[in-house]
């Protein structure tokens, strides 16, 4: 049974005990523990159930590569599923629970899947749930969804906050083991601005636990000295709890800092996502030990040999009393020795290699440990806990030679460098047959903006597994990074390393070599997704030969651990099954993030009220105080309507329309784009931008204009005002101001840079208020200061002066068909002017109206709305706007496209008005007009769709506009709109101008 040892544990502080709970049980740990070490210290070896077969699973690893020990942490608004116990720091009051089981961890109904496992091989779901088709939606999918997924998603809003941070450095060193510490020192000493990040809470990596001396000092002592040296360098910043998550183009790196995961609720942000731009990135990310594929290698108690050593050395925890070590390399002997030295029993070391004549083996033998060479594990006894191993000849088929009682198995299949960050941005790998791993190919690194490599691998992450080679490579990497960032490194030597020599490992991809199907079906490659040796072999047999296909078919490496333990073993099995070499099979693509990062960190500050900027007009507060029901219009918020008393929204809109048509209404039109275009060539330029002729516009007059894209499609409209000889004010749609301004600048900068024109986007400089209705003139007269009589200020004219004591421009334009003025005042005085209008209008029953009333009133007049009547495929001619297209101009943007044959077809969809047969029936927006019969595909024959549709209070009937094929020639026809399976609305094609076709209301 796993337990806390009386001594040892460089990471823990035994004077600071901590209470925590697991599945409600109160347990004790120490400061410095991970949740995993604390669970083992409390004898909790069973920590979860596997995803597919619900097999009992225990802790396998001691770091980020852990596939099994995924737990639920916290509760309520701090609940989070699928957290790795091995990377969770223990804190007082931590609450953890196991997942993926029902009703309990110890007794799980889903474990029936394990009994059925031979009926649930790779591809089972693909093959099984195909017929009958309807069953997928109604039967299979709901059942699978119920059982799919690991921990349940939190139901409450996240209580924490998150943030981003930008950093710029010469050299980023990822990984704070001996190599990273050394690289950072070399780069920093040379003067390079260096950031060193370490994903765990402590620097040192394996140096803290592996027996070796650096410069004559024990590992932990050297780490302390080294940190002191770095502390003395102004150029170097060291940070812990910060993981290199992804490396991207041009030296960009995302790093994930876990600020307060171990101190929840202390007021600090929980996570910070660093957006680092580095000239050079050193990946000193270490190496990960591989499991050995033998039957029962997933039984709780079977662990990586290095992890066993970590628990003993770092946390003073013994994963078991009797540990059998099984290995194909020398390093695992260190685990056996460490266990023995900690007073624990090691019944045997099973070495798959035919001989073990190295120094470590001699040392082990010297300690009295039985070393069996050429041996492997045939099978593991026990279900929820290892009780023993049956040993066999590695070269054989699994005939059991002997069974050894034990409660822990420490396995080592060799080491794989962590090449993820090297590979994210295109760094290539080479196969090292001696160590049976892929390592970064220094000749093919990821390339930066200047075309040179910007990532340098160091330490065991570069493939240098021997400690001496690792620190040497780290010094080289630090020097290289310093030089390539314009600094001159000193000539310091690599530290002296004293460590036992090792003989080569021997790759083992299946244990025993000739294991039969029964053994192979229990030899797990991917623990989290329950992928076994037999599954990968089946995939190859069924033709999924590409590693990418085999991965997706079997789900190998697709779990939350992204195959950190399983990938190399899996592709070796695939290569073997295909009779190909491992480099021929190749790896799957390494994609960021290195381990899962929180959604909160990705969002950063952009949550809640800061999720997205909301643009507000100068009168926004007033609207909010007066019952505004908001509508988002591009990034703006605008009042849709203002509710009074107990009105519902529809009643409020109706009231606003009728009051505006009868008395006078007030609209906040500040969101309209306002672009100043000025220069000797301004008229000429606007003639190119607009379809209309703008150069001929007289001073003081306004003209409605259309803008098309080079494809000929209408994309914005608005009123252009000639302010002076060489200056024009162009109004755009509310959503279009930035786009149109950028559009104008694009043409001026990139095509017609000879034109003398400057533009300025003045949208936000002005508040704009529309005073609309039969009594609008009376209101402006009451404001006083500008003569707004019909003679002085006729329709489509503009005047400048002072209204109500505020500097103002008055445009007599109308989007409602009423007598209407739009008044622009400096934004800071917008609210004052709005209030002045309300005061002056109170005698005339003035009421504010919102965007819905605006929409209805413009539709009553048949005015188009960009985004309703246009959708990026509509040309002005489709909308009957030929009158706004100049025939005199040689060129304007879109003119050539509108000459293309398809644009001239008479059966294009054209704008029509629609009057439903029943005047109370309002067509649904977007409803399709259908003709009898079906098309070639058996579908309804659609001839167009409704673009705007309202009930008009003014006309007391429904109105609509639609784009209908050949609509211009269909006047008087009755069309059918199928709005539901058995409901059709019939409507007559009419003129889209429903109200006051002659414009008498506005020309007063």
């Amino acid at each position, binding site marked *: 049974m796993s337990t806390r040892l009386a001594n040892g544990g460089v990471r823990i502080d035994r004077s600071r005990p901590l209470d925590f709970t697991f599945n409600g049980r109160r347990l004790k740990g120490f400061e410095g523990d991970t949740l995993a070490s604390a669970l083992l210290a409390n004898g909790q070896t069973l920590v979860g159930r596997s995803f597919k077969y619900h097999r009992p699973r225990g802790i396998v690893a001691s770091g980020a590569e852990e596939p099994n020990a995924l737990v639920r942490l916290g509760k309520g608004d701090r609940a989070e599923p699928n957290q790795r116990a091995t990377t969770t720091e223990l804190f007082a009051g931590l609450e953890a629970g196991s997942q993926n089981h029902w009703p309990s961890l110890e007794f799980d109904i889903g474990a029936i899947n394990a009994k059925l496992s031979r009926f649930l091989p790779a591809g089972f779901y693909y093959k099984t749930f195909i017929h009958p088709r309807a069953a997928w939606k109604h039967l299979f999918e709901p059942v699978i969804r119920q059982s799919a997924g690991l921990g349940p998603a939190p139901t409450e809003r996240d209580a924490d906050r998150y943030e981003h*941070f930008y950093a710029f450095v010469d050299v980023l060193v990822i990984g704070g083991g001996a190599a990273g510490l050394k690289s950072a020192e070399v780069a920093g000493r040379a003067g390079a601005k260096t950031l060193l990040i370490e994903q765990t809470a402590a620097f040192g990596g394996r140096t803290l636990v592996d027996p070796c001396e650096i410069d004559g000092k024990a590992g932990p002592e050297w780490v302390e000295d080294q940190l002191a040296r770095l502390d003395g360098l102004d150029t170097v910043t060291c940070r812990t709890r910060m993981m290199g998550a992804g490396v991207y183009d041009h030296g960009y790196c995302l790093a994930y800092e876990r600020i307060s995961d171990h101190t929840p609720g202390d007021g600090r942000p929980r996570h910070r996502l660093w957006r680092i*731009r580095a000239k050079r990135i050193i990946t000193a990310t270490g190496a990960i030990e591989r499991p050995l594929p033998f039957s029962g290698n997933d039984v709780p108690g079977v662990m990586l040999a290095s992890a066993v050593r970590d628990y003993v050395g770092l946390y003073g925890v013994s994963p078991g009393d009797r540990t059998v070590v099984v290995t194909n390399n020398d390093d695992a002997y260190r685990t056996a020795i460490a266990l023995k030295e900690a007073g624990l029993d090691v019944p045997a070391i099973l070495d798959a290699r035919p001989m073990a004549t190295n120094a470590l083996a001699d040392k082990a033998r010297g300690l009295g440990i039985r070393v069996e060479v050429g041996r492997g594990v045939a099978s593991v006894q026990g279900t929820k806990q290892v009780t023993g191993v049956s040993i066999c000849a590695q070269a054989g088929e699994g005939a059991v030679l002997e069974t050894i009682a034990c409660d822990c198995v420490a396995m080592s299949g060799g080491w794989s460098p962590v090449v993820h960050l090297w590979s994210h941005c295109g760094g290539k790998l080479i196969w090292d047959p001696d160590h049976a791993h892929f390592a970064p190919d220094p000749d093919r690194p990821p390339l930066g903006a200047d075309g040179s490599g910007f990532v340098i691998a160091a330490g065991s992450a570069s493939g240098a597994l021997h400690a001496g080679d690792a620190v040497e490579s780290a010094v080289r990497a630090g020097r290289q990074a310093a030089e390539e960032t314009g600094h001159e490194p000193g000539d310091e030597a690599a530290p002296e390393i004293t460590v036992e020599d090792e003989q080569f490992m021997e790759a083992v991809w299946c244990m025993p070599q000739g294991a039969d199907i029964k053994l192979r079906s229990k030899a797990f490659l991917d623990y989290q997704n329950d992928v076994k040796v037999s599954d990968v072999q089946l995939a190859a047999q069924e033709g999924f030969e590409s590693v990418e296909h085999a991965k997706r078919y079997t789900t190998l490496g697709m779990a939350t651990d992204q195959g950190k333990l399983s990938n190399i073993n899996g592709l070796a099995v695939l290569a073997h099954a295909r009779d190909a070499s491992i480099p021929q099979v190749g790896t799957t693509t390494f994609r960021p993030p290195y381990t899962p990062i929180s959604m909160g960190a990705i969002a950063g*500050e952009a949550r809640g009220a800061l999720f997205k900027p*909301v643009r507000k007009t100068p009168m926004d507060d007033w609207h909010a105080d007066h019952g505004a029901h908001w509508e988002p219009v591009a990034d703006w918020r605008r009042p849709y309507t203002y509710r009074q008393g107990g009105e519902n929204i529809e009643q409020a809109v109706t009231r606003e329309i009728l009051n505006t048509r009868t008395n006078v209404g007030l609209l906040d039109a500040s969101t309209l784009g306002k672009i100043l275009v000025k220069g*000797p060539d301004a008229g000429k330029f606007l003639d190119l931008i607009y379809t209309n002729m703008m150069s001929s516009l007289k001073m003081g007059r306004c003209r409605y204009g259309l803008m098309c894209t080079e494809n000929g499609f209408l994309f914005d409209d608005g009123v252009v005002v000639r302010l002076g000889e060489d200056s024009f004010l162009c109004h755009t749609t509310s959503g279009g101001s930035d786009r149109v301004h950028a559009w104008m600048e694009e043409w001026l900068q990139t095509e017609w840079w000879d034109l003398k024109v400057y533009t300025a986007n003045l949208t936000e400089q002005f508040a704009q208020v529309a005073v609309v209705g039969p009594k609008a003139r009376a209101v402006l007269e009451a404001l006083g200061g500008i003569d707004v009589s019909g003679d002085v200020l006729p329709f489509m004219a503009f005047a400048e002066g002072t209204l109500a004591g505020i500097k103002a421009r008055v445009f007599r334009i109308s989007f409602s068909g009423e007598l209407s003025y739009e008044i622009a005042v400096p934004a800071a005085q917008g609210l004052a002017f709005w209030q002045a209008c309300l005061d002056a209008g109170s005698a005339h029953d003035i009421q504010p109206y919102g965007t819905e009333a605006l929409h209805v009133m413009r539709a009553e007049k048949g005015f188009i709305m960009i985004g309703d009547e246009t959708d990026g495929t509509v040309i002005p001619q489709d909308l009957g706007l030929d009158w706004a297209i100049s025939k005199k101009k040689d060129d304007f943007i879109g003119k050539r496209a509108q000459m293309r044959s398809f644009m001239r077809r008479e059966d294009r969809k054209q704008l029509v008005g629609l009057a439903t047969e029943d005047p109370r029936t309002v067509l649904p927006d977007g409803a399709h007009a259908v003709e009898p019969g079906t098309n070639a595909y058996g579908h309804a024959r659609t001839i167009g769709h409704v673009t705007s549709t309202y009930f008009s209070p003014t006309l007391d009937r429904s109105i609509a506009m639609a784009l209908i094929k050949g609509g211009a020639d269909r006047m008087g026809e009755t069309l059918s709109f199928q709005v539901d399976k058995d409901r059709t609305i019939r409507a007559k094609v009419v003129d889209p101008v429903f109200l006051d076709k002659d414009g008498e209301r506005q020309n007063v």
Partner: protein
Amino acid sequence: MSDVMIEECPLRGMVSLRGDFASAAFQKALHGVTGLDVPTTRRIVTHKDGSVAWMSPDELLLMMSHDQADAVVSALEDSLSGEHHLAANVSDARACFRIQGWGAHEVLAKGAPVDLAPEVFHPGEIRRTRLGQVAVAFWMTGEDAFELVCFRSVAAFVSDWLQMAARPGSFPDVFNA
């Protein structure tokens, strides 16, 4: 401990001036009205009555007291008559914030993709970039002190964003370590 004050500045006079920086008439007009020369790339120059900032190769932002802006526009128009230019009062189109105190750099570094290290970003430089999702420009007015302008419509958003970023206990202490 953080100690960053975020405050919105009172309305400030701002004039956008576009023209040919190389033209003697332009330089003369600017000098005549502001007493300042055309700033070089990304510079902001200040005197007692205001400042002039480089916004793009053909655009400057002139800052003065709010009630002066219209007069400045008129004066520029007069002295640049006949010269192709654009001068517009944009005082009300923008909001201005002061970010001051130990950690001011760190507040901005949470949202702006700009190297703000003291050896890189100095007083006298204006940077147009983004803060989170909105366009801003900022410059240093002293040690640990910045001014930032954004569009008026997003002033509340920027204010909330800055307050959030300046909350105590949330600084990585990179610049002030």
